[in-house]
């Protein structure tokens, strides 16, 4: 069975807003982190997201020819949306309904990992379904103090198991957690 993991780049206080990323993400780019990210993405062949993330990513990445761009363009993209009518990024499929069943079917197929990106709404809807096998965080050394949090207020109590941790030179913590069945 394929593994499905959620990738989340967050500040220490859990902010992962694209709006503020220029402050805490763009300015901290460095080769070691880029190498880590590229290696992580190369483990997957399905790239899954909600509509907002999809619309934000595809214009730039569909034209990107860097190593990471090539990996993302090769992956099959699944965008979960009831409103999107076209998926312009090459190799894209729209999932409009029966989301949990469709994802479960994809997990049953042979293949590499399924990677979910950004997509707070999608991730929140999958919590408790048993479909998420891991959360892979990159925690940046910032407190933003405002903005959308990855773990929203009101989330049910969730126990996790730390499976891997790595400190990158920039002060980024790469942390991989698995949900613990309650």
């Amino acid at each position, binding site marked *: 069975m394929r593994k499905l993991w959620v990738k989340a780049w967050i500040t*220490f*206080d*859990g902010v992962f807003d694209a709006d503020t990323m220029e402050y805490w993400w763009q300015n901290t780019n460095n080769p070691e982190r880029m190498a880590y990210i590229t290696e992580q993405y190369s483990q997957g062949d399905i790239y899954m997201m909600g509509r907002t993330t999809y619309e934000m990513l595809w214009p730039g990445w569909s034209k990107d020819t860097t190593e990471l761009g090539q990996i993302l363009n090769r992956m099959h993209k699944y965008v979960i949306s009831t409103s999107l009518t076209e998926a312009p990024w090459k190799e894209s499929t729209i999932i409009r309904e029966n989301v949990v069943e469709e994802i479960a079917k994809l997990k049953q197929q042979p293949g590499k990992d399924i990677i979910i990106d950004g997509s707070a709404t999608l991730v929140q809807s999958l919590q408790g379904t048993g479909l998420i096998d891991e959360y892979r965080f990159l925690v940046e*050394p*910032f*407190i*933003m*103090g*405002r903005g959308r*949090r990855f*773990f*929203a*207020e*009101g*989330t*049910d*109590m*969730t*126990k*996790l*198991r*730390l499976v891997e*941790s790595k*400190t990158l030179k920039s*002060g*980024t*913590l790469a*942390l991989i*957690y698995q949900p613990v069945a309650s």
Partner: protein
Amino acid sequence: MRQLIIAEFITLDGVIQAPGGAEEDTEGGFAHGGWTHPYWHDDIGAHFFQAMSEADALLLGRKTWEGHGAAFNSLPDDDPFGGAMNTVKKYVVSTTLTSTDAWRNSTLISGNVVEEVQKLKQQDGKNILLDGSSILAHTLIENDLVDEYALHVYPLVLGGGKRLFPEGKRINLTLVEAQALPTGVVWQRYRPGSE
């Protein structure tokens, strides 16, 4: 200048309320008290003793001070944990307390917190340590008085409760140390300011 260190047990979603026991702090209907218990590891104790050996003062809000006092004040001086906690100088910040008899070696700060803490930092001495004390922590953070965050980050999400960092304050941090413990707790020390 003395360093002010905020030491906390904190969840992945930034909650610091009632780590030690079910009845520790149920304010706001908080029902998860004692959430640190399944994850104990001796290194957590070692970090605590290390922090205490580098400090000569505790700075606490009233509720945390009262809770610690109730736990420690009656322990004998030769108790390894209690001895350290009872003999160290405590500063409790409160506008409602009138006596510090509940926990020996305590001094009351009843007003002008920012000035009083600045004065303490200017004295000769070792580190000043704060734990719990969410309201006081917010005041200190908002006034840029904190020199280090020494955090044990637990592998769980609680979804609500008192949080360490106040809304609206942006802080650049430098990671000083990170160590994953076998029980899933990640020890993370940060200093405000960029490299």
